[in-house]
């Protein structure tokens, strides 16, 4: 950790287009904001799991929302024309701003034309994006942010750290200190109630005296010119309905074709955002409100302006990748389900306005590519993918941003050495990206030269050089290269000798297992053959995970192509594909849809299994009792386990079978509740992210400690290689793969 004197303020690290600013922001967030961010995001996260589980047709709603958004963005120009006619037909005003500047100027002019002196505002990220407050204040207009989180930020002069909870980085204690410093008051401000009452009284006066109200809009419907405003506090209702003038500002992507289309979105947004069925207030308005006269003695017609902001969005719409970000409904589910975000929040994992996994695409689209540099904090762990109510593939967006930023960086600041390396590897990326992205090549040579390569690797001079050249943190122990790879070790095993064939499979030696930890693969072979699986090994092939994670998309594409051709041979022989490393399996089951023709992808997806998942499936299908084959009581370390499943393994639904299997054979299994261990493949090895990675890991380590505090020590078990490394680094204990446990407790006689 750095010393506090060097800790930056959130405002100074808002722009993270240069790497040092990003690293400064991570330090600042870890020093100051991490505890509050962790507490608040994890509360949102568990709330969301509960609330979405309570929706019986959750998946159908997501499909419906996704389809509506796809159609709406495809038809956007036409919808904008319809919307303009609807708003004008209702008696409102419509303005489409090409740039943020134009939007801010228009709104300021409307306010000054009304001689507005005081404007109340509801929370609006779009207004932050266009720096609306600066424009209004420059025109001498007082702006009162009325959302309590925005109220805090306005006092603190900070940018939002979360799409829906902009001040989640503030603990109650820090808010008290801030208010006491800012306001001369004798009132007590030591509880949430007292702080809220204080702000309410102050803002009530603002509402009653405001000349105009400015809100955002969560959804807009073209056919009726209606807007939806979702909130908990009531400030947006007051903002939009109390003053005689209401201005709503929103991005053009918020437009939906019809008011009927709102149904799935209204049912999804609050559960996904805050874990509520609905937020306290979900207003569906068609302004200007005609029936209600203004709340004054003489009825006055209320005035309404809808200001839609382009500011790069229509260009995003043309982008083959980034257009997907326009489907975002800004619920924040991807932020809350992200282990890195939970640890540092949006002041580090975010740009000037937009934050988290989805934020990179938004900052790139509205402010420029390099403002998305923080998206490097997306490790591709994929936990957000199933949480997104419109099914945005956020890791894919970030891999693409990484590819573009890599090219930019190499162009701008790559050394001669880096440019030579890039040419050598046919990848326009800086050296560290190539190093981590081409583990297949380094692993191959490392294994060939082991143990010499391991000895060299661990020399202080090598570590220092590697830290400098490719950014591997010297505090991390690099996984040693195996001197005997899985594929060569397996050749020495005797083939399957079970008399009854219970299934035909081929084990795909992923590069991590093959070059790094062949013992996991050997255990899997031994276990599967022992239950009567006719198991062969496929050739080694880089599956593309390592390159994809570094933004080497073209390389990943070629590797996916080669690997799929290899695997299809075995599938067409009637064999299922077994993969030991979950991140490699997730390529086959999830990411290959980006790289392969649909039917090829579907064929591979349907025939690929995690090793224990396959074992459990065979036992279930054949109605065999797992306990006849394996018995936990034979394990020398006892029956108590702590099992941590891999992030991508959870996403593809391959985690539960391991838990069921381990329990079925008699283990007492405690499981981790974290989204990701923090190592996330190569992420935690990088010097730039070591502290963050260990910060994320702290949650996992603490869960192990807490579980063991209630009883005896537990054997640590993890399916992912990097999870294994992370647990080992944090707790200094041996960590087993589930197959290693099963190999140790299998019945000796054939069943």
């Amino acid at each position, binding site marked *: 950790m750095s010393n506090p004197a060097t800790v930056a303020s959130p405002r100074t690290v808002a722009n993270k287009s240069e790497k040092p600013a990003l690293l400064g922001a991570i330090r600042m967030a870890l020093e100051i904001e991490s505890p509050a961010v962790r507490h608040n995001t994890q509360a949102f996260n568990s709330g969301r799991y509960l609330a979405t589980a309570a929706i019986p047709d959750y998946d159908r709603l997501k499909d419906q929302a996704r389809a509506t958004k796809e159609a709406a963005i495809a038809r956007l120009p036409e919808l904008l024309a319809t919307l303009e006619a609807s708003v004008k037909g209702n008696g409102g005003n419509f303005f489409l701003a090409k740039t943020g500047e134009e939007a801010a100027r228009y709104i300021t002019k409307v306010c000054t034309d009304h001689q507005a002196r005081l404007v109340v505002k509801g929370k609006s990220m779009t207004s932050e994006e266009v720096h609306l407050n600066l424009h209004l204040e420059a025109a001498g207009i007082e702006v009162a942010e009325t959302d*309590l989180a925005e109220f805090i930020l306005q006092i603190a002069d900070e940018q939002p750290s979360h799409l829906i909870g902009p001040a989640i980085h503030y603990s109650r204690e820090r808010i008290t200190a801030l208010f006491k410093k800012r306001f001369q008051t004798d009132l007590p401000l030591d509880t949430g109630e007292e702080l809220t009452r204080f702000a309410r009284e102050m803002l009530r006066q603002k509402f009653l005296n405001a000349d105009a109200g400015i809100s955002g809009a969560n959804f807009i419907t073209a056919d009726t010119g209606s807007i939806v405003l979702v909130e908990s*506090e*009531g400030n947006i209702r007051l903002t939009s309905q*109390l003053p005689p003038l209401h201005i709503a500002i929103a991005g053009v992507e918020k437009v939906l074709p019809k008011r*009927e289309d709102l*149904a799935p979105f209204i049912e999804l947004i609050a559960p996904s955002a805050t874990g509520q069925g609905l937020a306290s207030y979900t207003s569906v308005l068609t302004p200007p409100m005609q*029936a209600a006269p203004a709340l004054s003695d003489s009825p006055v017609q209320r005035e309404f302006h809808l200001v839609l902001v382009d500011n790069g969005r229509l260009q995003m719409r043309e982008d083959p990748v980034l257009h997907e970000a326009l489907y975002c409904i800004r619920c924040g589910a991807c932020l809350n389900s992200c282990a890195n975000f939970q640890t540092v929040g949006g002041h580090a994992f975010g740009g000037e306005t937009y934050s988290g996994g989805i934020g990179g695409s938004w900052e790139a689209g509205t402010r420029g590519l390099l403002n998305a540099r923080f998206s490097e904090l997306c490790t591709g762990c994929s936990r957000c993918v199933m949480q997104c109510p419109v099914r945005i593939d956020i890791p894919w967006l970030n891999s693409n941003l990484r590819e573009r930023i890599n090219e930019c960086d190499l162009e701008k600041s790559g050394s001669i050495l880096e440019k030579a390396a890039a040419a050598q590897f046919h990848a326009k990326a800086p050296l560290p990206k190539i190093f981590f992205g081409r583990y297949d090549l380094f692993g191959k040579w490392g294994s060939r030269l082991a143990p010499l390569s391991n000895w060299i690797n661990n020399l202080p001079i090598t570590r220092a050089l590697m830290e400098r050249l490719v950014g591997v943190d010297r505090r991390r122990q690099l996984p040693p290269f195996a001197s005997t790879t899985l594929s060569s070790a397996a050749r020495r095993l005797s083939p399957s000798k079970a008399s009854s064939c219970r299934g035909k499979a081929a084990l795909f030696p992923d590069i991590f297992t093959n070059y790094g930890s062949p013992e996991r693969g050997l255990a899997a072979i031994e276990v599967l053959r022992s239950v009567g699986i006719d198991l062969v090994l496929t050739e080694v092939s880089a599956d593309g995970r390592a390159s994809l994670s570094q933004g080497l998309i073209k390389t990943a594409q070629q590797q996916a192509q080669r690997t799929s051709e290899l695997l299809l041979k075995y599938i067409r022989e009637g064999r299922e594909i077994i993969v030991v490393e979950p991140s490699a399996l997730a390529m086959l089951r999830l990411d290959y849809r980006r790289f392969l023709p649909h039917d090829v992808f579907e064929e591979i997806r349907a025939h690929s299994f995690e090793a224990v998942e396959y074992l459990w499936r065979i036992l279930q299908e054949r109605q065999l009792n797992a306990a006849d084959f394996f018995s936990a009581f034979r394990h020398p370390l006892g029956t108590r386990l702590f099992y941590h499943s891999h992030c991508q393994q959870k996403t593809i639904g391959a985690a539960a079978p391991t838990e069921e299997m381990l329990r079925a054979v008699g283990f007492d299994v405690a499981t981790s509740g974290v989204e990701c261990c923090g190592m996330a493949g190569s992420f935690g090895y990088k010097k730039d992210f070591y502290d963050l990675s260990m910060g994320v890991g702290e949650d996992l380590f603490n869960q192990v400690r807490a579980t063991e505090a209630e009883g005896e020590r537990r054997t640590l078990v993890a399916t992912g290689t990097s999870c294994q490394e992370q647990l080992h680094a944090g707790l200094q204990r041996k960590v087993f793969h589930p197959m290693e446990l099963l190999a140790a407790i299998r019945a000796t006689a054939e069943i």
Partner: protein
Amino acid sequence: MSSISSPVRQDLLLQFEAAARSAAASIERVPYSAESLAAAVKRIATGRIAIAETLDLPPDLFADLRKLPGLVRGRSKEELAACDVGVTEAFAGVARTGSVCVAVDHDYSGAISLLARMHVAVLSAETITERPGDLFNPRYLHGKTLQRNFVFITGPSATADMGPLVRGVHGPHQLHIIILE
């Protein structure tokens, strides 16, 4: 899915009550009459009371309410903001979320349901539908057009921005739902 004029489905009613309570609303069932309604409001409401006109319910139903002590007739925002209790009709209820739907552009219902510390929402049992999305379905609306300006209200106003969850922010501290049977 029920519709605005269908008979009361008891399962929806029970689900609505449970969901509304878990959203921190208080709730009671009252016989469908002006006297019973006035008596129910009188039991819980003290101080200055603002009452909006009915929307779908017959106007007579609110007649006795207007005889309650503390009735506020003024409609300036200052007068409404000084009220302790605001009574409005809710034209629909949502069983899954325990929400009530209020037409905010109907006779100051928006301000009356928002500015006082307690909002009393009067809901007719047969308007309870299963889920929020039903409101946008023509089948539920049963020939009526959906309100142009309305709000789903789910519990009292709340925030977690100041640290712990606090109920009662810019809107009511308490939401009391009276279901007319």
